[in-house]
């Protein structure tokens, strides 16, 4: 007898015996029986009984004939253990070690537009620091009237706002510049996440310190070993930059900058400095390593664009994709994600024939500026090979480019800001492959 059947049988016996007892005996039996059942359930959980695949009626599944776990079984809950395949992953050859490295969001398994904090991609330049909030401070100084040091308590006294925005590494998809390479959605587009961010508008803090008239740029710097730093134009800082301490309703995860980070909506993710400890106002940019040697875009003529802040309009189909192949012919709900660092997504069109004809998709989520937007449309797949593409258009009228247009403008060596229309080839057997077409 396997463990599941054994447990079912025990439960049945307990139930039947209990029915035949009366009064005090019955109450006594129930007390003992519950203890016994608790022990049986614990044993079963520890043994990892495989999920029953065909718990179809008329059969009553085991969990309908037993008591479940008590409250506070997990004071801070986790995803179901049956979802343990949904996890961040890395591509080992991208970086020489995992300390200064990146991991990718498992986009194929996520729903809606909010990325669960625990699987949002990571990017560290000197590893994940362990910061006690009572030891952390944010200093704001430079060309200001009133340089200050804020504790976390101080920071959290300021008026707060909550906004939904994506954060995307500008290298997202960068491995695809010279040709299709990564045969997973997670690796081709997973350097992105979207969350509700709560914190203080940087403009509120800059008003509090009083920016001098000559102040034009703000340097943001992290507290980790890389002391990651970026120069941000004052115009952006006074517009929508957020000093964030919470994500998706709880304090930031360590991986996302606990206890405080910057979020520059719509801009390349590395400007959203994590573990933020310092903001300095100056009259010129600083030209630090992460805005000169890195995160500049090399053009074919040998010149490089600097301060390429905006993440332009982009989209990708998330179902089907290599991780989510076609299961069987028939009607298929095709869906995907679109986003633009310049504003809201206005339209998303989908092609099943490599870009010859296009159909407009529906939005299946709320549409927020500088946020992931989910789209979907029905497709009747009869087992024929296909080439699925999505093309997003934002509210500035910008249309997501083709690879040909992108390469004509920038060549193949610019590493960052690859936002070309992506193609999934669907084979007759339902498998899905990342391809680039002429």
């Amino acid at each position, binding site marked *: 007898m396997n463990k599941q059947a054994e447990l079912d049988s025990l439960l049945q016996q307990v139930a039947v015996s209990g029915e035949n007892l009366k009064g005090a005996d019955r109450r006594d039996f129930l007390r003992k029986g519950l203890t016994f059942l608790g022990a049986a359930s614990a044993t079963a959980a520890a043994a990892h009984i495989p999920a029953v695949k065909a718990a179809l009626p008329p059969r009553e599944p085991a969990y309908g004939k037993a008591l479940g776990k008590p409250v506070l079984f997990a004071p801070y809950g986790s995803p179901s*253990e049956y979802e343990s395949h949904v996890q961040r992953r890395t591509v080992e050859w991208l970086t020489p070690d995992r300390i200064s490295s990146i991991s990718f969001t498992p986009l194929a398994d996520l729903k809606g537009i909010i990325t669960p904090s625990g699987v949002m991609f990571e990017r560290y330049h000197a590893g994940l620091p362990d910061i006690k909030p009572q030891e952390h401070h944010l200093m704001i100084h430079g060309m200001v009237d009133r340089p200050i040091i804020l504790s976390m308590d101080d920071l959290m006294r300021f008026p707060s706002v909550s906004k939904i925005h994506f954060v995307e590494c500008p290298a997202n998809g960068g491995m695809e510049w010279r040709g299709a390479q990564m045969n997973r959605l997670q690796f081709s587009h997973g350097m992105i996440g979207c969350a509700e961010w709560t914190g203080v508008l940087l403009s509120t803090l800059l008003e509090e310190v009083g920016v001098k008239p000559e102040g034009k740029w703000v340097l943001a710097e992290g507290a980790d070993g890389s002391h990651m730093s970026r120069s941000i134009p004052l115009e952006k800082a006074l517009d929508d930059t957020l000093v964030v301490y919470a994500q998706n309703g709880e304090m930031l995860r360590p991986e996302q900058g606990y206890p405080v980070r910057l979020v520059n909506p719509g801009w390349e993710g590395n400007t959203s400095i994590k573990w933020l400890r310092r903001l300095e106002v100056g009259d010129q940019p600083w030209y630090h390593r992460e805005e000169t040697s890195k995160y500049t875009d090399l053009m074919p003529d040998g010149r490089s664009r600097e301060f390429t802040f905006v993440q332009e309009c982009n989209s990708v189909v998330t179902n089907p994709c290599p991780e989510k192949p076609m299961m069987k012919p028939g009607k298929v709900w095709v869906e995907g994600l679109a986003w633009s660092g310049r504003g809201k997504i206005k339209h998303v069109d989908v092609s099943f024939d490599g870009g010859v004809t296009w159909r407009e998709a529906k939005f299946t989520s709320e549409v927020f500026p500088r946020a992931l937007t989910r789209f979907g449309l029905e497709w009747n797949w009869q087992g024929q090979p296909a080439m699925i593409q999505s093309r997003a258009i934002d509210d500035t009228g910008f249309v997501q480019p083709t690879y040909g247009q992108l390469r004509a403008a920038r060549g193949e060596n610019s590493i960052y800001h690859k936002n070309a229309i992506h193609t999934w080839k669907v084979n007759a057997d339902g498998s899905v492959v990342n391809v680039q077409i002429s």
Partner: protein
Amino acid sequence: MFKSPNQVKTMWVRLGLLAAVLVLGAGVTQAGKDSGYYGYGQAASPEQIAGWDIDVRPDGLGLPEGSGTAEEGEWIYEEKCASCHGSFGEGVDGYPSLAGGEGTLSGDGRPHKTIGSYWNYTSTVFDYINRAMPYTAPRSLEPDEVYSLTAYLLFMNYIIDDETFELNQDTLATVRLPNEPNFIPDERPDTANTRCMSDCRDPAAIEIKSQASPSLSEELAAQQGEVSDTVVESQPAVVTVGKSVYDRSCMLCHGSGLAGAPKVGDVDGWRARIAAGSATLYKHAIEGYQGEAGVMPAKGGFMNLSDDDVKAAVDYMVQESQ
């Protein structure tokens, strides 16, 4: 009176503080409320600001007092940098190359971006070493060492040819890098796709130009403990404390053999160490140890680790190296 950029910066800080104290500068800023409206936090003193204000700008603003030469920098480089960046700045095991690559930024070959071929300002070299290097011990260098290393890297890249040239607050910004003129502002949007809905292209002209290798991705997934997305494996990955500490704090050196560290899995390298007994290994790992091949810093420099964490990581490394 001439003031170095650094003095000017200090002056700004002092002026700012004076203004705050006298409530003279509390005028209305660009928009909204007066400065100090909420009054939260504490005023930052010049000493506090000086401690964290490490940034350096292309014009030299922010450079600390001190000096160094390439001659002095060579020795520091060999000791603290060459294990990752190579004796000639060529880069080792995927760590960044720091020299060479001139003339590779345009044309058909792969661009080789280094300080000499790509970076735009000398100040960036100083600033980056000072804020983030050496990789395993950031913020550990004295200003003279940073000046010396900057000078040596400039020498290595043929930017300066005098090993005794003194780099300091006043001279650093005078040394220019060759690629400086080649940085331009963002020109995007630089593509102009249109929203065509039908007959957008000739179907016969569609050709697959490149295709990802499924096997590559499957290998990657397998390495990371996943069989397939469609199989529900209810066995969660068992991550021990030791492995977790190792991954975060020890792997950098013990995974690669960096700085003379015994590599995990190197049975020969670990035999004598394991024979010395756990107590000795724990002691060396927790308190630090000067070995023949290299130095083990106390707790690998991660002083926030508990002794038990370190012991667990040692146990893990021993287990993987027998």
